[in-house]
């Protein structure tokens, strides 16, 4: 059995495809299960509108599944495209592409289950508002998918960029690092964005008059929650598009791989934490609309402090790329 470069490329394509779909299946399944559980409890509370709740559960689950469908698309491309290769950089590209999309789908899948569940519960509580709740759920879930879309962008850029002119030695590590940065970085923000959207659906059903501030602050909170995922995307762009000089030593490639891992792992915590902050702010705005200004300001300050660890990761990742 001989192992030439082409064999390794095929191995990486199969491995990448498997990991893309394997990791990508985790999040959406959890999110959809949560939605269905909430829908059950909503129907038992208000059986009269079970049809409406069932419909909204299905719509919410369909959106929660979209992160997994992105992973499926990447897995299909990896499995059914013939990749001809010149160097083992191609193998790393395929592996990184699968990793990025697979890991990136986890957070958004779980996250978009939360608003769908809260919308079902809210309909049982306040059937009058079901139209508005569905709209809000759709907006919240769509914004929730943003981190998964970032991971998808990284995967596609990896697959369709020509890396053949690059030196093998640091490029393989830069590419794997790019996959980890955007893939891992999307987990926390996806989850956190879901928490915010959940609070807004709950808030609208509690206080239907507070629709406008609740929706606006939800969008704001979700946008700030996504900041660390954007740092991950930024680091992976730098790793993909910066030309690194060829090296025979093992240290520079490891610095690049370390930069990707540092940013990816460092983005998980701030994403979830900022999600908690914004969730609570949105929840209390619904109960006390007069305090919207104060709550928004404290939410932004709290999120900025929660984000500081993400900024430390960004600084260390930049140091690893540009200084070491």
């Amino acid at each position, binding site marked *: 059995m001989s192992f030439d470069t082409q064999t390794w490329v095929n191995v990486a394509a199969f491995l990448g495809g498997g990991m893309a779909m394997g990791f990508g299946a985790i999040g959406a399944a959890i999110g959809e299960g949560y939605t269905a559980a909430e829908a059950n409890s909503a129907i038992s509370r208000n059986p009269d509108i079970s049809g409406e709740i069932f419909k909204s559960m299905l719509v919410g689950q369909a959106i929660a599944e979209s992160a997994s469908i992105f992973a499926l698309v990447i897995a299909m491309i990896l499995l059914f495209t013939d990749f001809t290769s010149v160097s083992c950089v191609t193998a790393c590209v395929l592996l990184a592409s699968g990793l990025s999309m697979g890991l990136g789908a986890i957070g958004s899948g779980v996250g978009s289950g939360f608003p769908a569940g809260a919308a079902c519960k809210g309909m049982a509580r306040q059937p009058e508002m079901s139209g508005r709740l569905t709209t809000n759920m759709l907006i919240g879930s769509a914004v929730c998918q943003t981190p998964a879309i970032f991971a*998808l962008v990284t995967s596609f850029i990896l697959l369709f960029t020509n890396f053949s002119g690059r030196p093998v030695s640091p490029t393989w590590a830069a590419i794997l690092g790019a996959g980890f940065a955007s893939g891992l970085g999307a987990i926390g923000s996806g989850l956190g964005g879901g928490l915010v959207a959940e609070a807004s659906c709950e808030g609208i059903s509690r206080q239907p008059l507070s629709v406008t501030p609740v929706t606006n602050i939800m969008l704001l909170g*979700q946008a700030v929650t996504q900041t660390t995922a*954007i740092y991950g995307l930024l680091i992976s762009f730098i790793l993909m598009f910066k030309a690194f000089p060829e090296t025979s030593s093992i240290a520079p490639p490891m610095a690049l791989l370390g930069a990707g891992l540092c940013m990816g792992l460092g983005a998980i915590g701030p994403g979830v934490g900022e999600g908690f902050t914004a969730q609570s702010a949105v929840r209390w705005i619904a109960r006390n609309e007069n305090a919207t200004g104060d709550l928004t300001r404290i939410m932004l300050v709290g999120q900025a402090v929660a984000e500081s660890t993400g900024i430390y990761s960004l600084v260390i990742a930049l140091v690893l790329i540009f200084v070491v």
Partner: protein
Amino acid sequence: MNELGKVHQLIIPFFGHDMTFNLEAILMTWIVIVLLVLFGFFATRDKSILPGPVQVIGELFVTQLYGLTEDALDEKLSKTYAPLICALFMFLVLSNWLGIIPHLEEPTKDLNTPLSLGIMGFCIAHYAGIKAKGFKSYAGAYFEPIFFMMPLNLIGELAKVISISFRLFGNIMGGSIIILVVSHLTYSIIFPPVLNAFFGLFVGTIQAFVFTMLTVVYISVQVK
């Protein structure tokens, strides 16, 4: 599939540097500008107490966005900044919607557009902050809570520009890549219109709103 990531560029040598112009982004931006000017013309052409359809849309934009600005800033400042916010939102919405027309592309798909709008928002926010608080207390804010936090506060401020512009860019670019790849895989049957409606109209509107809202919030954080 080959058109993915391909950009038509005009490169002009300029005193030893190459000036690069992304032709598509410039052309599409001009299309958006022309459409907006036409819209403004028809919305205000014969103003009446019983508004015509175009005037209604114009009034809707103006009242909603003035209300949004007034919620975040006080009344006096919102008079100054609301026209900017209005223009920003209308430009972004139309830019993000442009991609659903065949052969046209979103100018926001090119990183230069969101990045320059982000830098613009950043400069305006800091100008407003200096004007409202005075330079001393503006600069003092960077040394809180302790003086050696200054570099991190500075990076945190700069990261805001990155995050606001990459968020728009990533969403619009991601949407258009998904549309392209899925259309290719399914031979353009059934899926493209649905995807265009979702990513072009729905996500495009939300992201334009998020960008506008964040610009307002950045101004209000600096002012207060």
